[in-house]
């Protein structure tokens, strides 16, 4: 079986992202993380949302599932339940996962489904030419909000932490090494891991460019204890503060599939019923 190598992951399709897009470094970090985890090519499934981030589907060779906008996490839950031996990774944007698909993200957190979710968070709907997203700052002027965005940005990470996600982290597309480590930790974590990756969109988000990020992101302090849920929520109350690292980690909670009786010994796909005896099922109809 093929090992994951950078060569094996290489897609024949060239990325179509704009020069300077944060997606390039996130994809590099993801590939690097997969290589460093010593996985096999057929042990990983990546589900992709719709958007610039979702287009990663064409730029990496893997078992891939290019879903509908907002629905990828719901697919990922089904994939994991069908074959929990697979490492299931979800890639989507802030619009896809925090907007259209927020209900599915909350449900995935509540179930602590063992899925690693990378949110390519550029604070814009870029594939549809730059409208505001759920993470845009209040007042943002864009084509769909020419008078300035009235809503507050969503507290997506607080939502995740307060709804059962076991692993919540924030990364920045400009810090490759840290991204690689966070993605690896997220994939190894048995439960729902959410990694919000802050990234510039040089075409449609002129306010939050690399220079802006350099001034606004900071690593969590060495004393920060990620097992403290309350502290994590306090840390996130200040939405302007973009602290990087593992914000919350719960090592006490089982992943969803670990609590499903029929999945305790084998994955579902390994139990395809070649022969079915209906005797038990008809007992109440006799």
């Amino acid at each position: 079986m093929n090992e994951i190598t950078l060569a094996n992951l290489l897609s024949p399709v060239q990325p179509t992202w704009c020069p300077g897009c944060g997606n390039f470094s996130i994809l590099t970090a993801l590939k690097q993380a997969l290589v460093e985890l010593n996985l096999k090519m057929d042990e990983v499934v990546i589900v992709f949302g719709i958007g610039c981030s979702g287009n990663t589907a064409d730029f990496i060779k893997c078992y891939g599932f290019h879903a509908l906008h907002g629905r990828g996490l719901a697919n990922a839950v089904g994939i994991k339940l069908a074959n929990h031996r697979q490492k299931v990774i979800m890639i989507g944007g802030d619009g896809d996962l925090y907007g259209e698909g927020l209900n599915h993200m909350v449900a995935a957190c509540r179930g602590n489904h063992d899925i690693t979710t990378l949110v390519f968070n550029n604070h814009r709907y870029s594939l549809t030419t730059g409208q505001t997203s759920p993470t845009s700052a209040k007042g943002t002027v864009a084509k769909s909000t020419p008078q300035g965005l009235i809503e507050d940005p969503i507290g997506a990470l607080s939502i995740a932490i307060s709804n059962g996600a076991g692993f919540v982290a924030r990364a920045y597309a400009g810090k490759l090494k840290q991204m690689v480590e966070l993605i690896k930790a997220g994939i190894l974590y048995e439960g729902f891991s959410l990694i919000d990756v802050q990234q510039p969109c040089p075409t449609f988000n002129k306010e939050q460019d690399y220079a802006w990020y350099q001034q606004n992101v900071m690593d969590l302090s060495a004393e920060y204890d990620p097992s403290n849920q309350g502290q994590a929520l306090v840390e996130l109350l200040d939405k302007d503060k973009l602290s990087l690292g593992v914000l919350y980690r719960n090592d006490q909670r089982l992943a969803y599939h670990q609590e499903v009786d029929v999945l305790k010994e084998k994955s579902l796909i390994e139990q395809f019923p070649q022969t079915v005896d209906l005797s038990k099922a008809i007992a109440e109809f006799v």
Partner: protein
Amino acid sequence: MSEIEELNWKISAKAGEGVMSSAKLFAKACKRQGLAVFNYYEYPSLIKGGLQSGQVRAALLGATCQRRHLDLLIVFHEKFINDHLSELNENSLVIVNANNFDPSKYPELKSQVVAVNLTKIARDQGANPLAANIAALGLSARVFAMDLQIMGRVVVEEFAKNKEAATKNLLVLKAAFELTDELIKQGKLTGQGNLISTGVDEQLLLTGNEAIGLGALSAGLQFYSAYPMTPATGLLHFLAAEQNNYPIVVKHAEDEIAAINHALGASFAGVRAMTGSSGGGFALMVESLSFAGVAEIPLVVLEAVRQGPATGLPTWTSQGDLNFILGAGHGDFLRVVLTPGSVEEHFVFGKLAVELAEKYQLPVLIMSDKYILESHQTMPKMILTNNNQRFAMLNDGRLGESGLGDGEYLRYKASEDGVSVRSIPGQGNALQLTNSYEHDQYGFATEDAVETKKAVDKRAAKLLALQKELPKPLYFGATNPEQILISFGSTINVLREVLLSPISSQIAVIHLPCVYPFPTQEFEALLADKIAELFVVEGDATGQLAGLIQRETKIKDLRLILRYDGRPFYSEDLLEFLQSGQLNQQYKLL
């Protein structure tokens, strides 16, 4: 007392008073006596109060649907008599759960009415007063001179998990039987004949929902996700309970969009997957149905129709979603729409749907309705063991080495019949991208005009082989009929009873068990040499099935018998129409 070969029985009470279990147990006792049984429920969308009824028709022959006129009606509250006046005649026996009854209040009532305090019978045995529903069974067993032993076993089995309740209910059953026997001996109550017993009980009694579940399980269904919605909830409950016995995961999803997408994910990963809902929930799934179409993901969907539009009549039947189901999903893609009639057909199609979905890698919809999905009907016991094989899957779905070289595999490889061998995660050298975008043979997105046309044509090419495997229209009745009644889905259950009547020599019935792809050739062939008046009998207001027939066949001259008030058709009404031309005012003739 004379032997009877059929009965019509009904119990009517407030929600929460045990009507459903009482009717189910009575139906089961009739089945155990070797009869064919149909058990139809009516209930409002609330948990306590309101009028709820369960009605059982049992017969040596037929009993494929409910009948209007009752041999025995048991009402828990006297006022409910008014709701059933049209179902009673001089031969009916009415039992009122009360100490006494004043017939002068109901001058139009011609039936024998007897007050029996069923609640007191339960209380006197130290049972919960709600066990009045069991007392009703004891009384009924005596009225029809049924086998009390059989009825007793049915009751004990129902309460198998609670020995104390089982014992008490058995006492209630016997006390009610004995009290009724006393009343008959005293001449205060007249029995309704001795229900025949064949001594051969080889049938199952179950609902359409349960039958679909059984069929799907036998075909190796391993994943079902849904959000509760009447009348599809029965399937969710049935399969959820079977998680203890079979390798299946049932997921109550956060909404219907998640439900269908869970199933799509599971199916992509290789397990046979299904979802289900009613019209409103299915409406939420529609974008994802289109995804299944373009990405060629096997998927089975139950659309359990209830009366719409919108929230509509949540607990009442309809066939009004036909056009919606035929057209659901943006873009052109192939689908199958199965429309099973009998409970047995629900079993067969539950299995068929799962297999067709995998074989042709497309969405297969089972359209059914509240009427048959929540009614109990007898069916012959099936062969209990089923051997499953995998279709169009790389290495028959086995994980591990595929034997392929790197780069050899193509998920959407061009093929004459439109079906490409499907790999699943965990198979070596068989990477693929299952894509909601139009895609090339590997799965990468494409906007190329030539590639796009090829991809669309490839998927459409499945039709040729698929059509050969679909259930064909069925013809019953006279060879040279004066009138032909055409229906789809559950309506055949009613039309079969029409065929039991003496006028069956002049009528015929066509049942369409699959409406899409429409069986044009077969349907036209059935009518080729017929000079009959054609009536389409369907449960909607606009003649959706008739419109489909006119669109898909040469047959244009159709009359319509429509019902769209949430209630099922009655064979009596259709018979009356065929004989006298008079149609029940709740129906519409076009």
